[in-house]
């Protein structure tokens, strides 16, 4: 067993994890940050669009620039980063942790405090041939094009018109890919109007009440068949349309990645508004297991901006428990962040989240 000089383990170096590290290091707390990817930043490193909100939410800043800004906040001397490494288990009752370092060597550690900031993973939908090469999740499309500079396809069908579907469509145009059509099963576009009008202006046809029936091809995607849906979500016969594309991008939602929390014994709760099954947590972002905190999409799919605040809240609450900052100073900062979170969720798009949080607060596992 390695005797650890770290006070806190942060799992995941995306928006939530980096913000947690920033707050912890500001309080002089030593952190081990483990991330499965080769570079820090999580999904932020793929976001070329400018963020909304107010200044404190990095409004006007492009997502790709945020990881650097956050890392500037972190005292290098206080943080150790294991990238390309995976936390494979958290064992109660002492929070023993197994880390697969560099995907080569297993290390054992033990931590009093752990922040799980593992994000979310892409949903899949059912249609014929949905396993063909050339069908990507929206995150994969962003990785290929915005992280590694590769045009994922020449002609794309985008499935799903939530914010991610809209933003990625726009990014595809910037990268030189033609988005031939954007389809959405719901009767209306789910994402922000500004994003939608931008891509409509660019000439991408958007079809609502439409879903994908089939991908065409044997070795890879050569086309797709779409179909119209009636008000009961049933396919309307005779409305099938064939479209020639070499790539299909699925932007059909995300599910929280919280398996580590379950392994650690954290109680789960089903809240549809937050993405289905999630670990229960209190307003300090602490789970039902003492010392284990969770932040960001891992505890409810939302946005990068709210993930960042949840990360800060988790970090600050640990600093408070460790008495590394006066209780008064801690409480002030925590309140600021809670207010900031409320502001983010106050718009019409936040209603669903607020309803989810209300359900969460209705249950207690403390």
């Amino acid at each position, binding site marked *: 067993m390695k005797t650890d000089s770290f006070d806190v383990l942060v799992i995941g170096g995306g928006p939530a994890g980096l913000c947690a590290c920033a707050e912890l290091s500001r309080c002089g707390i030593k952190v081990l940050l483990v991330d499965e990817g080769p570079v820090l930043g999580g999904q932020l490193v793929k976001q070329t669009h400018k963020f909304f909100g107010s200044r404190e939410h990095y409004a006007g800043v492009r997502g790709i620039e945020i990881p650097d800004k956050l890392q500037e906040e972190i005292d290098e001397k206080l943080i150790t980063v294991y990238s390309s490494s995976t936390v494979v288990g958290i064992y109660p009752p002492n929070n023993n942790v*197994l880390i697969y370092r560099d995907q080569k060597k297993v290390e054992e550690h033990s931590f009093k405090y752990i922040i799980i900031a593992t994000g979310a993973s892409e949903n899949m939908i059912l249609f014929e041939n949905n396993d063909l090469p050339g069908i990507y999740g929206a995150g994969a499309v962003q990785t290929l094009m915005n992280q590694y500079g590769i045009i994922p396809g020449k002609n794309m069908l985008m499935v799903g018109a939530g914010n991610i579907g809209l933003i990625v469509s726009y990014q595809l145009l910037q990268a030189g890919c033609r988005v031939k059509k954007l389809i959405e099963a719901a009767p209306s576009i789910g994402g922000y109007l500004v994003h939608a009008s931008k891509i409509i202006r660019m000439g991408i046809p958007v079809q609502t009440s439409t879903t994908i029936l089939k991908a065409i091809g044997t070795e890879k995607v050569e086309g797709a068949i779409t179909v119209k849906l009636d008000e009961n979500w049933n396919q309307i016969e005779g409305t099938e349309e064939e479209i020639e594309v070499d790539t299909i991008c699925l932007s059909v939602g995300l599910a929280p990645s919280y398996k580590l929390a379950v392994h650690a014994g954290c109680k789960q709760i089903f809240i549809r508004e937050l993405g289905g099954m999630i670990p229960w947590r209190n307003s300090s972002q602490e789970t039902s297991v003492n010392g284990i905190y969770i932040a960001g999409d891992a505890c409810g799919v939302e946005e990068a901006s709210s993930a960042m605040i949840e990360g800060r809240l988790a970090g600050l609450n640990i600093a408070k428990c460790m008495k590394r900052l006066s209780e008064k100073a801690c409480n002030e900062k925590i309140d600021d962040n809670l207010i900031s979170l409320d502001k983010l969720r106050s718009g019409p798009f936040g209603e669903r989240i607020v309803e989810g949080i209300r359900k969460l607060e209705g249950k207690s596992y403390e």
Partner: protein
Amino acid sequence: MLPKTADIVIIGGGINGTSLAYYLAKKGIKNIVILEKNFVCSGATGRCGAGIRQQWGTPENTSLAMEAVKLFETLSEELDWDIEYEQCGYLIPAFTDEFADQFSKNVRMQKKLGLDVSYLTPQEAKDIVPDLCVDNVRAATYCSTDGGGNPLLTTYAYAHRAKELGVKIHTKTEVTDITVSGGNITSVVTDKGTISTPMIFNAAGGHSQEIAAMVDIDLPINSYRHQILVTEPVEHFFDPMIISFDYNIYFRQVKHGSILMGCSDTSEKPGYDTTSTLDFIKDITTRSIKIMPKLKKLNVLRQWAGLYNVTPDAMPIIGDVADVGGYFQAVGFSGHGYMLGPKVATLMAELIADGKRDEIIDRLSLERFKSGNITVDSSVC
């Protein structure tokens, strides 16, 4: 909605409960209700090592297992459901002279019962599993008709076919009490209501002793945590299940390609804890590599734990009891409920539906512990 009455209430939705329901329904028994406190196969069955072997240390376990294998050989066909049963063999190396001697005795007993089993030299064992490290192997036993199946598929298949025959399965329904009047079972009380019934069948696996206690039957049983892990899948490279009583470990490459391995921790205290531990993963990986060094290249995918429901002689307790009319049980399988359960269920169905009592039921009844004269099966891990 929970029915108000039943002809028999089966407590537990694992292999024992679902297979008994199926065989009883096939015999024409109506109004069978299964009560499961969680979901079908959520307990020990769904967490078990999935092996089916006949190489045991006592004649009771051996002959019962031989009968069970006969049943498994045609079970996919009977249930019209592929339960992934395969006769991949069991290879049991002995690393000490004590075990080598014991195995030689076991083989003689097993052969007498008609089992096709061989006593092998280390080289003969290596011929069957080339990746086996035989440096310290003294001898080994091998039976090619041993094997394994998929406990989840088997239980789902029984449950599904039982439902088709009219059995009612109520999940998320926990039994809280059982009432007895004039020495006979009268009803089962649950968190969802009460069912009047003249008969109950205790198939509660790791929690069987708690159910028995509700009718004042004191079972000489303790539950122990048993942990298992599964590795990433790779192309098939060895066939049989390998067990070592020296290393207290078993492992097998299942159809999917993963290696499934488990062991009992002898320092484990009785209890109902099913959390996974780090010590287990460290311990079993170290031990398994000594038997098959090639395993060290594999990544572990998952680990989990279930309960062994253990009797003093490592043999199940089945049948009825003298003091409580209408009480039947198949409990205390000591980690081997999946492989023995279906056969026991056929015997219990004959007892309950036809009043036909197989002699093994008496030999494995609760009464045997009253004499204090028991033979322990040491071929358990």
